[in-house]
């Protein structure tokens, strides 16, 4: 896992540097006391220091092995993320409730390997559940698709 720690340390370091640079565009001092750039500047410096310490630890304790970053089930993480992104992108077409219903059925089928009937049933119940709880009860303006749902 040392490589992951190395990457983590570099990200923290770069993020800290970016925060310092961006905070320099904000006033450090205000008329009375610290300005809006004060805290972000010190937070950025703190992140840079932490990143340096993490990288130092990675170099010193290179042999500390704590498991692999990618595991046998990492594909399921990718699948879940990809399908959720697809749902959000397809909201103008499907609507949020139907999109999330399809998402539920799709994941149950692909990850859980449940039978089609159960996937379909839970998917439909999800659509009606969203419409009832969030649309009717909480009266949220749910984004609708071409079907008007």
């Amino acid at each position, binding site marked *: *896992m040392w490589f*992951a*720690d190395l990457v*983590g340390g570099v990200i*923290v370091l770069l993020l800290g540097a970016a*925060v310092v640079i*961006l905070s320099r565009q*904000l*006033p450090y001092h*205000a008329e*009375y*006391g*610290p*300005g*809006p*750039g*004060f*805290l*972000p500047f010190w*937070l950025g410096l*703190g*992140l840079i220091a*932490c*990143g340096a*310490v*993490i990288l130092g*630890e990675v170099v010193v304790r290179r042999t500390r092995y*704590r498991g692999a*970053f990618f*595991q046998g*089930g*990492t594909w*399921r*993480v990718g699948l*879940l*993320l990809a399908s*959720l*992104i697809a*749902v*959000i992108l397809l*909201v103008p077409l499907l609507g*949020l409730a139907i999109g*999330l219903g399809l*998402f*539920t059925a799709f*994941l*149950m089928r692909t*990850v*859980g*390997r*449940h039978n089609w009937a159960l996937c379909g049933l*839970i998917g439909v119940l*999800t659509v009606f559940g*969203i419409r009832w*709880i*969030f649309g009717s009860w*909480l009266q*949220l*303006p749910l*984004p609708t698709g071409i079907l008007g749902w």
Partner: protein
Amino acid sequence: MELLQNLYTGFSLAVSPTNLLFAAIGVIYGTITGALPGIGSVTAVALLLPLTFTMNPTTALIMLAGIYYGVAYGGTITAVLINVPGDSSAVMTTLDGYQLALQGRAGPALSIAAIGSFIAGTISTIILMGLAPPLAKFALRFGPPEYFALAILAFSLLTAFEGRQPIKIVVSTLLGLLIATVGLDVVSGLPRFTFDSPQLLGGISFVTVIIGLFGIGEVLSSVEQEMRLDFLRAKFRLRDVFPTWQDWIASRWAILRGTIIGFLVGILPGAGATTASFLAYLSEKRLSKHPERFGRGAIEGVASPESANNAACIGAFAPLLALGIPGSATTAVLLAGFMIWGIRPGPMLFQRNADLVWALIASMYIGNLMLVLLNIFFIPAFVAVLRIPYTILMPLIVVFSTMGAFSVNNDLFDVWLMLGFGVLGYLMKKLDYPVAPMVLALVLGPFAENSLRQAFIISGGSLSIFFTRPISAVLMGLAILAYLYPLIRWAVKSVRQVTTAATDLISARR
């Protein structure tokens, strides 16, 4: 007398049919989610928080508090029956609870946990009643330097209590503070880190972040490992459930000691139920005349940590209500709820919103009573619910998280943010960065920054203000000690190792 009068007012509000119904919903939902490995109290509370936006704050708070201590009860079920803690606060319960289940004594293990939790919850609520109002009165002396020092103490104690890689805890805290700075600066009105996005001008909602980090982040972590819950077959007939007389004798002091340890740890900002149960178990083992029984099915090994984790949940309300400083990630989410409902916890809460506070405290008695009954008489029903495959629950958690994030501003932008924070939460877990400090820093960030800026305005930009005012100096001193604690621990350990090596060498030469 005033205390009893306040409690009476609290009970008269808490026993209204609506409040009773939502207390019941909270404790049942809390027990179920607490029993599900991977869904802790933070996720459980965060998922339902968006549903409470339009609710009466008292009812909402009663329900969310019920979820919080319901999780502590629920975590025991899987800890005893499948040797996997439903919530991290039940880790120590697995040691003896599962052994008892293997011996055919799952019923007494679960019921002693429920009864211990009930006793601990009731005693802790009494202590909370006595402690919180004077603490709030004392906090009236606090000014911006003291509040800033208190926030720093809360962050630093996480470093001392978490134990693992302190630098990663600091990174997590800094990230939380950084996210809290996004949006319009309240003093100057200038936008910070908004990148010309109008949606970011109001800042990043902590509800979105919390749902992403805990709801989506936990699902991503869990889906990676194929989760299968194999329950032991246990008898849950009424006569098999109750503890024996010997169990009572063995557990009575363990419950009381667990309660005291739990409450004391719970009121410390940054500690929490997991630390409390760990300390209670270790102290019980140390005090026992038969420490060898621990880990082999000692009933007091279940009673003590379970009492402690419930007492810690109640104890965590003391700093939240009296100081406005959350003691744990879950109380940080509750603080976020308070802010959404337009209520500011802290010293003035007991004066401005006395009804809400006392209704909440009264509901803790009622909630704990509901939980003990549920956890003794309805265990088979909970086990049946837990048999629902995770592959069905997982997409439903994502659906609920998505709808929760959407409901913050009725905007899909929050769903994208939630997704981004979900990935961040997953990566942080994978890379061993704790998420709780980030949540605490995110919620306390604006408050800490405002206090810091006000303190600097008072002192004319001098740092000495934090060290010359007595309360602030004590809090800052404690915070520095807590930050240095890992270093001190490492130094003591190194000195011990060197001394032992030197002693061995000398004795070998002789």
